[in-house]
């Protein structure tokens, strides 16, 4: 078999329809498609060549539900045997009673005693069908109803940046502001604190990360920002 040929530089921006490589010996990751002998980008993004693997990291677009994602959803409808959850995407998720509570619930009984309209919940996507029917559960560590606090929404493509490598960025914000923060993969973030001032600092920090996600050395910059705003010394985690 002939050796594949890479046609664009690693870590370059590609647009839909751009031929990124030629040859049959590549493994395709997300965002790229094979057409005959050519490998074509199917959306705007940052291309990564990792050995034989080609993957495209999306930089824009709405959230698309994926299995095993932990998201923050809003109860938008109550059905006969569960809830319909708004996921900030084109597809609402179904939360079945048996995926939500351990006790026996008689069919047709009032479900608002568990989750009411407009309650926010942390849930995990257990299944996504090809028709984009989404099932979520609230059974599991850290999955629960959110009480109090505030909700902010960010671009879901920036979520990995807000969390940081192994949670480094998020831990730094939590440590500096003392806030309780939960980040959903769908770009919904819940922040709760007893100190409204710290809550505001956390919100501003997250907004800054969202806007400046591309800046090299962002962790140091955010570290300096947090120290200045909170007036506390914060330990900088080594990655």
């Amino acid at each position, binding site marked *: 078999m002939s050796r594949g040929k890479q046609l664009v530089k690693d870590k370059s921006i590609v647009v839909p*329809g751009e031929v990124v490589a030629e040859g049959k010996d590549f493994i395709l990751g997300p965002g790229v498609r094979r057409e005959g002998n050519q490998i074509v980008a199917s959306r705007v993004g940052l291309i990564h060549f990792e050995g034989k693997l080609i993957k495209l990291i999306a*930089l824009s677009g709405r959230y698309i539900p994926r299995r095993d994602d932990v998201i923050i959803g809003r109860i938008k409808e109550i059905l006969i045997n569960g809830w319909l959850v708004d996921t900030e995407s084109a597809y609402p998720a179904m939360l079945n009673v048996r995926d939500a509570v351990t006790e026996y619930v008689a069919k047709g009984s009032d479900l608002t005693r568990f989750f009411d309209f407009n309650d926010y919940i942390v849930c995990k996507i257990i299944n996504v069908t090809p028709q984009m029917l989404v099932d979520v559960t609230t059974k599991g560590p850290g999955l629960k109803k959110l009480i109090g606090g505030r909700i902010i929404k960010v671009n879901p493509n920036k979520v990995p940046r807000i969390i940081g490598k192994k949670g480094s960025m998020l831990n730094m914000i939590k440590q500096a502001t003392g806030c309780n923060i939960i980040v959903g993969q769908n770009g919904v973030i819940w922040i709760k604190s007893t100190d409204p001032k710290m809550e505001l600092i956390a919100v501003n920090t997250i907004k800054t990360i969202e806007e400046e996600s*591309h800046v090299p050395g962002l962790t140091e910059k955010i570290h300096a920002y947090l120290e200045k705003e909170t007036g506390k010394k914060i330990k900088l985690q080594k990655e």
Partner: protein
Amino acid sequence: MKKSFKRPDGRAYDEIRPIKAEVGVVSRADGSARFQIGKTVAYAAVYGPRSLYPKFLQNPKHGLLRCYYNMLPFSSKGERIRPGPSRRAMEISLVTEKALTPAIDLTKYPNAVVDVFIELPQTDAGTRCAGITAAAMALADAGIVMYDLVSAVAVGYVNGNLIADLIYDEEAYPGEVADIPVAYMPRRDKFSLLQMDGKVSSEQLQKALELAKKVCLQICDIQRKALKRRYEKYKLMENMEG
């Protein structure tokens, strides 16, 4: 009957008007673009994929693309345009939809809709082409899964002379005029829009389409550059996944 014809703005026959393209101009939209060709300006804003109602419009096999073409009241050279959908605007919305659909992988968005809004604040012919070109950039900006970009241009004949990118004064020229708006997918080498106004022979049409291809490749290059300019800064971003 080939009579000599001098273009009112002094362009060469196969020369297009100066183009400005920018991506990410509407902050509340999921994707947006501004495309200016000469005096024609088109804004496109994309929302979605989002849930589709009324429910009977939903299709579990593939998503839906909806386009709205709108000329603003003060946009034209002549009389004020009455706001709201007219017969003409509805037709152009439809052909825009048909021109863009083959470039998009709608099977990725079952039961959902992608809405495209095209607004024209200033026009000097070639509005549907400018709209389609802007919409293709906006769709890419919105992260929609696409097979290819779409570039569009009008070509035509004035007194038997093949010209590219007609302006209003050429469309309304008192002579024999044929106007052919074309949308083209450059990598797939396929046309997705072909309309015609006027009289041309089949050889003339072939020649016109060859010119349209050539010009669309120039426009596509500008589209790609505009998209890359918008995302260039993310090049330095480190990989956080995996």
